[in-house]
């Protein structure tokens, strides 16, 4: 595991100290009835998978989500933690070619899997067409949801191509097409609180059109 930077250490130190102070202050109010015995330590488990084409091996507490393994252990911080409950889509990555919420999956369940994160789609010098289209169409404001939006957008166009049905489809036996309504429905698991939705849909439409 790469070394943690000094900056991160000091930031964590401050957070820990802050939490301890808060706990002391709060103690008289929330004392005995809420106390839960600490969990006994669980032995770490080995897991091996490929991330962006590279073999990785980690030793993890079984509780570690795929999201935390990527961010905290492999330092691939492009994938974001928003709600941590599968509601916002900021943590979207591709596993064996399909998009999932990495926050709702245990890392140890991904033995042997191939994972693609935003870092594996393109690089600053060689953007993935979807990344380039997001830049061109201004498909973001603060950018926090953007890696998840882009991973999801790439996967959505693939799902449409593979004929995966959606809620807005009229004839279930017909092949879906990349219409605006289709893309909006399929992107509903990715929330953007800045409200860049219309530009995201335009970016996707451009990539879908270029492919067609």
């Amino acid at each position, binding site marked *: 595991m790469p070394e943690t930077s000094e900056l991160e250490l000091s930031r964590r130190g401050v957070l820990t100290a802050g939490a301890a102070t808060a706990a002391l202050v709060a103690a008289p109010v929330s004392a005995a009835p809420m106390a839960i015995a600490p*969990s*006994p*330590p*669980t*032995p770490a*488990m080995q897991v091996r998978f490929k991330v962006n084409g590279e073999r990785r091996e980690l030793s993890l*507490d*079984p*509780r570690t*989500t795929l999201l935390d393994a990527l961010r905290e252990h492999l330092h691939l911080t492009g994938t974001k933690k928003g709600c*941590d*409950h*599968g509601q916002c*889509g900021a943590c*979207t990555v591709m596993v064996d070619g*399909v*998009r*999932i*919420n990495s926050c*709702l*999956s*245990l890392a*140890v*369940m991904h*033995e042997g899997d191939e994972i693609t994160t935003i870092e594996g789609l393109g690089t600053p010098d060689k953007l993935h067409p979807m990344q380039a289209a997001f830049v061109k169409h201004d498909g973001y404001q603060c950018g926090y949801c953007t890696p998840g939006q882009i991973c*999801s957008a790439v*996967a*959505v166009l693939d*799902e449409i191509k*593979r*004929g*995966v*049905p*959606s*809620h807005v*489809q009229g004839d*279930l*036996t017909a092949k879906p097409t990349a219409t605006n309504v289709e893309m*909006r*429905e*399929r*992107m*509903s*698991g*990715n929330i953007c609180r800045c409200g860049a939705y219309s530009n995201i849909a335009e970016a996707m439409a451009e990539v879908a059109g270029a492919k067609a």
Partner: protein
Amino acid sequence: MRAFTYERAKDASAAARAVTANPAAKFIAGGTNLLDLMKIEVETPTHLVDVQDLGFDKIEATREGGLRIGALVTNTNLAAEERVRRDYGVLTRAIVAGASGQLRNKASTAGNLLQRTRCPYFYDTNMACNKRKPGSGCAAIGGYSRQLGVIGVSDSCIATFPGDMAVAMRVLDAVVETVDATGQRRSIPIADFHRLWGDKPEQDTVLKQGELITAVTLPKPLGGKHFYEKVRDRASYAYALVSVAAVIQPDGTGRVAFGGVAPRPWRVEAADALLPRGAAAVTARAFQGATPTKDNAFKLPLATRALASVLAEAKA
């Protein structure tokens, strides 16, 4: 999240034995609901048995002309299966009306049936909840109950079963197949699978500890037109306030089940028989004895209107 140990099971009976031996153990497949609940310590298993390698990931034709859906088939793959789209459209429609693309890619068929209620009081560990902590009371009764159940509920719990897929399976008369630690197999009609809460709301289904779902079978296709009408607060990615799964034949007869209203997909066969007489006749029978709260009484007329919309479309 509370600490747990983890194993990846190699065969079904070993998995069933491991979970039977430890009352605090659970199976994990997609994990999309279980991990969500473990993070907030509503679920606190001490051991997880991962069933992803058990091979229950196929959809096969049955000798009776139906389909056998492996317990681990993802929601996306079930909805996309060609025979399901063609012959069991209500099932595809129900699945794609639920959750998000990311969740459907991970969630399994068995896990969808076993998902727990989304009652806000079940999720909040500071609140009384008989389902989460038996005997602690029900904060939902007299609380904020707009999304909660109107029928089949009890004095101890007014939560609903939140899913969509199972509502379609109820209309199709699906059967849940299981195996236990001794190798004993069971076929449970979906009508009997989810319990009414009664005074034991902590038990969602009739499954015993360690009993593992291996498949869900569908009888031969019904023909007719297939509908899943879901009414919700957002156009996408929201739980049903009311949903209607229906298969309507050209002569106006058919079957209907309602979601978002009860502890289980709600179907009353005697109400099915009233379909040719229109939506109001059907819901009057299906919701006979309903006990709505002030907050959720709107679900009763909403169910009638949602069904009326389906019946109008069936005639068109």
